[in-house]
């Protein structure tokens, strides 16, 4: 926002309240309450506003207080945001960033635990990225703001409190690039967002047991970084996908298809995918915990896949 005066923030309680997860804390005081705009409760409409502002030269960052509420904005996102650059013949660009916290939290109930990446992945014209660390959150946010395309940035409710040392200098990450978290030789584990941490926890156990997993945080949910993913598969010949979204129509489903289409010959075993079940997320603590993939399940899956020759 300092670098570019056209960048502005639109959302509920983003101004003086600083945002429901404090992502925009302090911005209203610094940049004024027109550039950090508090809106009435109408997601479809403030998303529409953001689209109109973007077509007229601004670069809005639209916040859904919780990703799930952006389902109300689906009309604007699908029918207009993803489309108007195309249907106008390239005359109007929509450089918006649509972001918000999603994913399963701690007993927030079904409506506050949505994973929208599954629903949005089909919309043409959108780019989807998921951040998972303070380092990549900053880099991806900057890249998303600078992109001429509409980008949906998936943040996770449970990851806001992470602390990490990040470079003082300016850096911008590539929206289409995956992140190599742990290089390895034996099996490729593809994951994103919070599941990265469950995978890394499982990786510790696996290493102790003598396995050598390669962990990749795919980050870019649309399009997939098939270059990084492909190189990994060509090396390890085994793939496990670990995701938080529901099984049916999830990111894993698309990723599996893409891998089969492109790297079938390199696979020594079927592609396994661990996802949440196709149920609304329950409130009860234990039930909620078990809708999400746990490290123990990841360890078992790896063991199973590595048994095959």
């Amino acid at each position, binding site marked *: 926002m300092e670098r570019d005066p*056209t960048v502005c923030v639109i959302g509920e309680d983003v101004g003086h309240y600083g945002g429901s997860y404090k992502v925009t804390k302090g911005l209203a005081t610094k940049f004024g309450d*027109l550039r950090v705009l508090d809106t009435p409760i*109408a997601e479809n409409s403030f998303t*529409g506003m953001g*689209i109109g*502002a973007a077509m007229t030269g601004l670069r809005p960052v639209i916040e859904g207080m919780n990703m799930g509420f952006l389902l109300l904005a689906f009309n604007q996102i699908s029918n207009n945001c993803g489309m108007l650059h195309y*249907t106008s*013949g*390239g005359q*109007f660009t929509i450089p918006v960033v649509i972001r918000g916290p999603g994913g399963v939290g701690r007993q927030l109930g079904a409506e506050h635990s949505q994973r929208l990446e599954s629903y949005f992945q089909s919309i043409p014209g959108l780019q989807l990225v998921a951040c998972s660390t303070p380092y990549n959150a900053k880099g991806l946010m900057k890249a998303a703001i600078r992109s001429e395309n509409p980008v949906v940035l998936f943040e996770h409710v449970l990851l806001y409190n992470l602390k990490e040392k990040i470079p003082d200098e300016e850096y911008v990450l590539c929206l289409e690039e995956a992140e190599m978290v742990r290089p390895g030789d034996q099996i490729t584990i593809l994951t994103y967002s919070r599941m990265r941490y469950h995978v890394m926890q499982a990786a510790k156990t696996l290493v102790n047991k003598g396995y050598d997993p390669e962990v990749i945080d795919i980050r870019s949910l649309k399009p997939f970084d098939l270059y990084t993913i492909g190189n990994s598969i060509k090396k390890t010949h085994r793939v496990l996908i670990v995701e938080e979204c529901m099984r049916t129509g999830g990111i894993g489903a698309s990723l599996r298809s893409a891998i089969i289409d492109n790297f079938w010959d390199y696979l020594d075993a079927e592609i396994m995918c661990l996802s949440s079940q196709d149920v609304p997320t329950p409130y009860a603590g234990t039930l909620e915990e078990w809708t999400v993939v746990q490290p123990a399940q990841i360890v078992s899956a790896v063991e199973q896949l590595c048994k095959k020759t």
Partner: protein
Amino acid sequence: MSLIIGHARTAAARLLRRSPASILLRRDSPEAPALGRRPVRRMGTARVGESVSTAYEECSDQVLDFPGGKVSFIPEMRFLSESLGERIGCYRVLDDNGQTVSGSTFHEVSKEVAMKMYRHMVTLQVMDTILYEAQRQGRISFYVTSTGEEAINIASAAALSNEDLVFPQYREPGVLLWRGFTLQEIANQCFGNKEDYGKGRQMPIHYGSKKLNYFTVSSPIGTQLPQAVGAAYSLKMDGKNACAVTYFGDGGTSQGDFHAALNFAAVMEAPVIFFCRNNGWAISTPTTEQFRSDGVVIRGQAYGIRSIRVDGNDALAVYSAIHAAREMAVGETRPILVEALTYRVGHHSTSDDSTKYRPIDEIEHWKSARDPISRYRKWIQRNGWWCDAAESELRNSVRKELLQAIQVAERVQKPPLEELFKDVYDVVPSNLKEQEKLLLQSVKKHPGDYPADVPV
């Protein structure tokens, strides 16, 4: 230091008002006040810890303060009636004979502007007739007429400036015509050829022109309303001498986006004109089944928006109303709601036959006796600016020009297959390049299935 809230009667508490309306923070210097024009009244905002409500003074017997301000209270239980009883009056300048109504006030138009308006209204009418026929003949796949709403289209456009950003629904091509969109450009879009600015990607009548500040038509109803508010927000940030204008029908006012857009615009004090073409019908739904309020104008006040009802078939009234609305929108940075009453003479579109749900003599009545063009024509003829000969000459020349444009448009090549993958993103990404490759392979393999006259 947070200020106290409560029943304190100290001077400090009395001073506790909403923070003074802060001056518009220009985007290039957060501290500098708005340059040039008088400071824009901003929504007052509270600092954390401050109260937005007025100081709690001694409550009298009659007045109580709640969040939102003071209200006097009444002991009898009284419900506000669902209607005012009398409908909000409709602003009109010309009577059915094209004579200015005595006592009417309106913004004078020069002969040049008045005649330009008339010519464009006729052009729109002729264009609609011919292109509707073209669809019937199978030359274009779809068309939407603006018959009966020519005054709305042209007069409103005439009262705006070219810098005002227009967010149309789909029955406002006249605004484009006014700004200089040619009949050839219209035909190109309807035929979806490669000269179309939309590159053949949208249905006919979904025009869009960045250079004329007319945002590409999008089919879903009402999506353009919040977008217009966003554009107005952008204009306000830049302090530009322009407003956003958005058009929609009576049916569009039922959409959730209508409510939120008006509400936002009022809260944000955005310079936007909401123009409702209340033409009585939303496809087959008459307004009696669309809402139970007194039309649309009555709703403006509910949002805190200044509004007016105007005779949409009276070109001079529409012109004056929009002229005034624009002045207020830009000068006072506020939204304005305009409800233009009119009648949709044509069918909803070429996919509709409105005789199925409304009487033919009703349509005929509005087509002839209440035609906005004939009414306006009587006025200009009375001024000595027009005659029958000029009329036939104009109609013939427009007809000729359009038929020529259609012939040309029909023959221009359709967009090549490669346009299928462009502009989805700023740059064609690898997955789309791959899909393009597969498609080209398929076309090469089955040349008989691919039309010979469409380039690849």
